[in-house]
């Protein structure tokens, strides 16, 4: 089955027939509702909050939330039949979200942001759209605010494109995968304003394995071959020799620890 984003832009894809599925199909409604609850669990809100729901569509997630603002780009998906307490806005999130800085306590997005990786017109690139979206989202959240975006990455490349755009905007980012390696894997991008450690979002949850790729990379860089160490000196000498330069022969004294003179 081909992916929706590969066939049409969202405002054309979500016509009456497709949109009805989000209002009537109980399977779709249940999946969307589960993902909304999971996202809320990750947000861990302590009090009634002002939330932005990005790509709210027919307001499925909005029914579960209350006191929200919602944005969507497809007229047929508007929550006109649903009893949604929040305000709806028709907008293209690739153009950014137009709110004052520090407006929202949190943001949530279910099954929406993968559409940003598609650029229908030639004057905008996916990177440009992602940048504008995440930059403006970052600004519109308060200090210490959080955002959780469930999305469907087409491949690993799209996944890292989206995650990197969020990190470049200043977010601390992590990806939560529900049912990894299965067909029904659900990917949640968990973001925190301020670029700090995001693993706190899952600290209370069971059955969550944390893979911290940051620490591994740092170790490989510095601790294995520190600049100025004997191993580094030997490597540099080998490089210069390979280049054809004159290099003194090595001995047991090469790179030996000297007694500090001062």
């Amino acid at each position: 089955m081909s992916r929706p984003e590969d066939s049409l832009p969202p405002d054309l894809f979500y016509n009456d027939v497709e949109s009805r599925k989000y209002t009537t199909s109980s399977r779709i409604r249940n999946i969307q509702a589960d993902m909304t609850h999971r996202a809320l669990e990750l947000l861990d809100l302590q009090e009634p909050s002002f939330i932005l729901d990005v790509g709210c569509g027919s307001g499925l997630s909005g029914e579960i939330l209350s006191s929200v603002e919602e944005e969507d780009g497809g007229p047929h998906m508007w929550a006109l039949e649903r009893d949604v307490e929040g305000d709806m806005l028709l907008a293209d999130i690739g153009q950014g979200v137009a709110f004052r800085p520090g407006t929202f306590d949190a943001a949530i997005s279910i099954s929406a942001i993968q559409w940003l990786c598609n650029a229908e017109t030639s004057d905008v690139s996916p990177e440009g759209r992602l940048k504008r979206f995440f930059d403006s989202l970052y600004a519109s959240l308060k200090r210490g605010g959080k955002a959780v975006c469930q999305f469907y990455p087409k491949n690993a490349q799209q996944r890292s494109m989206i995650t990197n755009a969020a990190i470049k905007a200043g977010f601390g980012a992590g990806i939560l995968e529900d049912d990894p390696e299965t067909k029904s894997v659900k990917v949640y991008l968990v973001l925190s304003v301020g670029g700090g450690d995001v693993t706190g979002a899952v600290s209370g949850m069971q059955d969550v394995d944390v893979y911290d790729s940051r620490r591994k990379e740092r170790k490989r860089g510095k601790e294995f071959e520190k600049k100025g160490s004997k191993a580094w000196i030997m490597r540099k000498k080998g490089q210069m020799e390979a280049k054809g330069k004159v290099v003194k022969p090595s001995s047991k004294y090469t790179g030996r620890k000297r007694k500090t003179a001062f």
Partner: protein
Amino acid sequence: MKLLTLNFLTCARKACKTSAASFPLHPREAELEQVELDMNPQFIRNVLPRVEWEAMRSISQELGLPSLPDTAPGPEELADAEGGPTQILKDLHTLLMETTIASGKLLCANCGHEYAIKEGIANFLLPSHLV
């Protein structure tokens, strides 16, 4: 669109991002509608510090609503001795959450662009030459 939302919306154009005149957006030909909503005192307490009171006053004036006090109510004015809602809290709720613009236009003072509101939903889609 609730008046609360209007207090946070700015013009979506990139050119207006750095200008102070792009907030607040000014309602024109607005048709107001009162929508009943359950009051959530904690939410109002949470959101009130973020509300731009001056902008709220000028919007209120433009819409022809009763004028608001010079400064925003403080947190102590929102709950009475027993912890119940005060009249001020109820008035805030009516103003921010229940007063909505059902149709009309939102004007940016900086670039002059008008965003349309239909059935309570504002259209912020920009043609590519305006983005």
